[in-house]
């Protein structure tokens, strides 16, 4: 080994490079964590909230005419199989090595296979035992997915629109305090005056406004999420929200500091 190559080897073993990469990667990791706390994730439509109304019904049970399939429930035979969990393939047993003293059977090229010998059935005589943790087909019970559970918005009025959501979970404000949601809906609705809209407007597409309700009931961050396309409707809608300030303070046993609201308005004269 020449002195030069030795020096290269020593330089290659130094920790500088990997340390640098480690610092960069860690800082990126923490950076992404910090950024993610500022980016408010608004929940998702499927499992976000059941807010918007006190009436919470099962679609299948409540509306007889809607032919939605109920999730198939198969009762488990607990006597036969108590096991639960996912199928995990077990490692196959290795083929045993032939004994060292075995002599190979000489092969005769012209030897005929007897035509009456059938192949053994692989289905019936599979030598590998079934894994202990497998759930047999159809045996796991109903999947734990919210099937067609939805809440009727705006105090149960038929034209109030509906939305999907599950009870419980992270954003369960709407289901826990449905009376509060209804009260907000009632207050803002009663402050939405027809006279504040241009008389020429007969109908306007849905306008959606978002705002936050702080702990003391104050309204903050009023923003138009979706414009109705008409300035006077948009103005009246924002005025209806701001005219409801302050709202009732958030429920006393609610632990959060604020609640975000998405409020839609359908204008029709």
């Amino acid at each position, binding site marked *: 080994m020449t002195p030069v190559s030795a020096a290269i080897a020593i330089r290659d073993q130094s920790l500088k490079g990997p340390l640098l990469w480690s610092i960069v990667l860690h800082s990126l990791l923490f950076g*992404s964590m910090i950024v993610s706390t500022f980016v408010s994730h608004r929940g998702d439509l499927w499992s976000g*909230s059941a*807010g918007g109304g006190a009436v919470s019904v099962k679609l299948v049970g409540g509306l007889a005419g809607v032919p939605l399939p109920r999730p198939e429930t198969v009762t488990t035979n607990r006597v036969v199989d108590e096991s639960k969990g996912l199928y995990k393939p077990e490692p196959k047993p290795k083929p045993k090595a032939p004994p060292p003293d075995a002599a190979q059977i000489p092969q005769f090229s012209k030897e005929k296979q007897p035509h009456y010998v059938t192949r053994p059935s692989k289905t019936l005589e599979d030598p590998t035992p079934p894994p202990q943790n497998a759930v047999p087909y159809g045996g796991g019970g109903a999947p734990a997915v919210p099937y067609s559970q939805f809440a009727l918005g705006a105090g149960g*009025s038929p034209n109030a629109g509906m939305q999907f959501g599950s009870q419980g979970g*992270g954003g369960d404000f709407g289901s826990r305090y449905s*009376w509060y949601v209804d009260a907000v809906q009632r*207050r803002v609705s009663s402050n939405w005056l027809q006279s504040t809209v241009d008389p020429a407007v007969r109908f306007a597409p*849905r306008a959606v406004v978002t705002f936050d309700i702080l702990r003391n009931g104050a309204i903050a961050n009023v923003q138009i999420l979706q414009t109705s396309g008409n300035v006077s409707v948009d103005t009246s809608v924002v005025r209806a929200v701001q005219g409801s300030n302050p709202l009732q303070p958030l429920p006393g046993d609610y632990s959060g500091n604020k609640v975000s*609201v*998405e409020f839609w308005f359908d204008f029709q004269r």
Partner: protein
Amino acid sequence: MTPKRLGPWRAVAILGLLSTLGALQWAAPAAAQDWFRTGTGLGVSKPTVAVADLASRSGDSATTASLFSEVVRNDLDFSGIITLASKSFYPTQMPSVPGELNYKAWSDAPVSAQFLAFGNATVTGTTEEIQAWFYDVKNSSAPAVVGRVYHGDATEEQTRRFAHQFADEIIARLSGGVPGVASTQIAFVSGRSGNKEIWAMDYDGANQHKLTSLHSIALTPRWSPDATRIAFTCYPTAGSILSAQICVYSDVTSRLLNWAHYRGTNSSPAWSPDGTKIMFMSSMFGNPELFVAEADGTRPRRVTHSTGADTSAAYNPKTGQQVAFVSDRDGLPQLYTMDVDGGDVTKIPLPDMGYVIDPAWSPNGQLLAFSWRRPSGNYDLYVMDIASHALVELTRDAGRNERPSWAPDGRHLVFESTRTGTRQIWSMLADGTSPRELTAQGQNESPNWSPK
């Protein structure tokens, strides 16, 4: 393998790692931020509320219990924001504590209530204790909306006060933060003692009591914005001449406060929304004009300048910058608005002739109630949306209806009416429905609803 050839692979590996991290961050929902979605289309729906009879926990608390539930029931019924479930549908078993509550019995037909008020009352000696709850019976997992314990003297007045407080609490929760008016007072003028004096009562007509004993004439009471004082028109005896002056009664000390006297006729005081000024009509310079003075009557300044008489000023309670008043400068008494300094006088256009008097602003400053005698009929109450001048007629063919005054929630009006033959105080919802007669004794007039 040299480091140079590793470079792109490393970059790819790092990118992959980063994207995995990012995906993880996004996938985990930030459960800290709750939100809900709601909306409105046409109209406002009212929740159905049932009020169970309070359980009586001791022998002599039966009257307290029934009075409490009766008052709460009346308050909720008159709030205008709920539908009261009919009492005949109630289940026979009334819960006295949350543990006894059978959610299904109340939330299912025929009661079909969304909320239930219930509780119990105990009277020991001269003190009473009332436990009251308000539960969302359709949401048995988190039903508590209001829970209160009231402790006080075992008197009818105190029980009524507790019931009003409890009802106000419920109404505030259900209306999204607008306080209820069950604990408010109404001042009015009554001649039942022989002279016209200022009286006050609870908003439901209970607890009527006389405030002043001036043995002359008292008119047009007006509560101050902090509800501690009442300004009114009085006729103090100065020698042998009766001249109308402004008097201010303090509800705290139960006495009249000093207020400056001026020449001529001074009447119809109106408080500015901040409570620092009083606008009133005065003929101190001959013609009846509007003047504004400090709350103690000093430093009067003339506001209107016209050939006719100007009177009955009312400040816009929201802005404090606009005043509605009555003037006959064009012949008949009509409504006008102006700025507080007297500028920008505008006549409020009406589609018909007749006398228009008694302007009263709604608390949100958007509606103006007044009484109007059209050529075809009697005095009736109207409400006008001041921005669009859209009119709603509230009374018709029911005697003379005059002098409306708004409740602080903007949902109720109190007024005087002769529909029963005598002049009495009535209240109703601001859309003209569910009128209630509050007084029955003697002649009563000129009501004014306290601001809190």
